[in-house]
């Protein structure tokens, strides 16, 4: 009986350590996905709102993500801070709270006020969804 319990503990420990070492959910992958996705959504939203077009390169989005629990790998909650150049040339900073699943998909929800409300009005008065308020993305885990 003791041997079985011991074996179970060893297997659990081995699996847990393997989980820590081999998780494909890494800071580099998340930053590499949320940065370009955010840039694409900004350019799209600007076109919806009839603002002068800007390329994703002009926006120069720089993403910095970390996991509040400390260890910078694994699924669950993450926070990302995005630095980018707005239409007026000012450097803007937006924060997002992410929930990342084990298959490499995430939902990012804005946690700073600069992003605005969930819906926006275009010049013509049409109501559109604020694409930056909350968005989803996926990255390759292989």
């Amino acid at each position, binding site marked *: 009986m003791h041997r079985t319990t011991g074996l179970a503990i060893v297997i659990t420990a081995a699996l847990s350590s393997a*989980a820590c070492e*081999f998780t494909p959910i890494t800071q580099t992958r998340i930053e590499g996905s949320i940065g370009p*996705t955010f840039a694409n959504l900004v350019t799209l939203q600007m076109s919806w709102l009839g603002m002068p077009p800007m390329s994703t390169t002009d926006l120069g989005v720089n993403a910095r993500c970390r996991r509040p629990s400390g260890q910078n790998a694994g699924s669950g909650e993450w926070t990302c801070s995005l630095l980018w150049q707005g239409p007026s040339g000012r450097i803007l900073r937006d924060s997002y709270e992410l929930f990342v699943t084990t*298959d490499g998909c995430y939902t990012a929800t804005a946690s700073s006020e600069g992003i605005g409300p969930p819906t926006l009005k275009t010049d013509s008065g049409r109501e559109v*969804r604020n*694409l930056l308020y909350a968005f989803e993305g*996926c*990255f390759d*885990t292989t």
Partner: protein
Amino acid sequence: MSIRGLGAVVTVESLKLLRQIRTHVVLAACVFGPFAFAAAIRVQSSLPTDTLFGRSVKDSGFAVPLVILGFAALWAFPLLASLVGGDIFSAEDRYNTWKMVLTRSRSRADVFTGKVVTALGFSAVAIVILAVSSMTAGVLIVGVDPLVDLSGFVRSPDQALSRVALAWVSILPPAFAFTAFGVLLSVVSRSSVVGIGVPVVVGLTMQLFALVDGPEALRRLLITSAFGTWHGLLTEPPFYEPLYHGAVISAAYFVVCLAIAYGSLRRRDIAG
């Protein structure tokens, strides 16, 4: 095994299926379910934001089949896939008809292959109907506006249509793996409750396991992981590696389950 023998078994099994109310109810649900879903989304203000593309269901009709794909992966695909496979062998035990079936001029190999082909055919037909109906419901009820993908890129209706269709095709290998698992349980347990119920429970358990941050290699060994490999088709640049992995894992489950099932049926002593 002969092609003629196989054809005869498939014809008989298909006719039996077509006579069952269960088949009609399930296929009708696959046809009308997506329309009910799209109509409900249209009239209510809240969105299914906990599923990928849930935020876009009012913006583009192409998001509708993707949301349904995400929902169905939880338990509907394992159920659809094992509904016939999990019953097609054990029904002979239930009605005590094995003796009659095996004393005809068809070999056990013919009967086994014919039943498996019928079960796979039903799984494929149910999934294709659900796919076409989801797409039609999305296009008719929500519209053909471009789709914003998982990288924030706008996909034209043509591109969105082909990507969504490919995403649904990617569901077939894991669905067939579940059908084979249902067949195995149906042969070994001789019980339709086990044949249909266990794949659904196993599917749910695998999904729960995938929520935990376990080793990646282990996660990829689950059949249900292959239900989510389509995500790479809707990013820019797209990534296909998980799709290949999913197909290979599904094929492995498929072959192993059917080999054990056939071995068990071939050795079975049907007397009396």
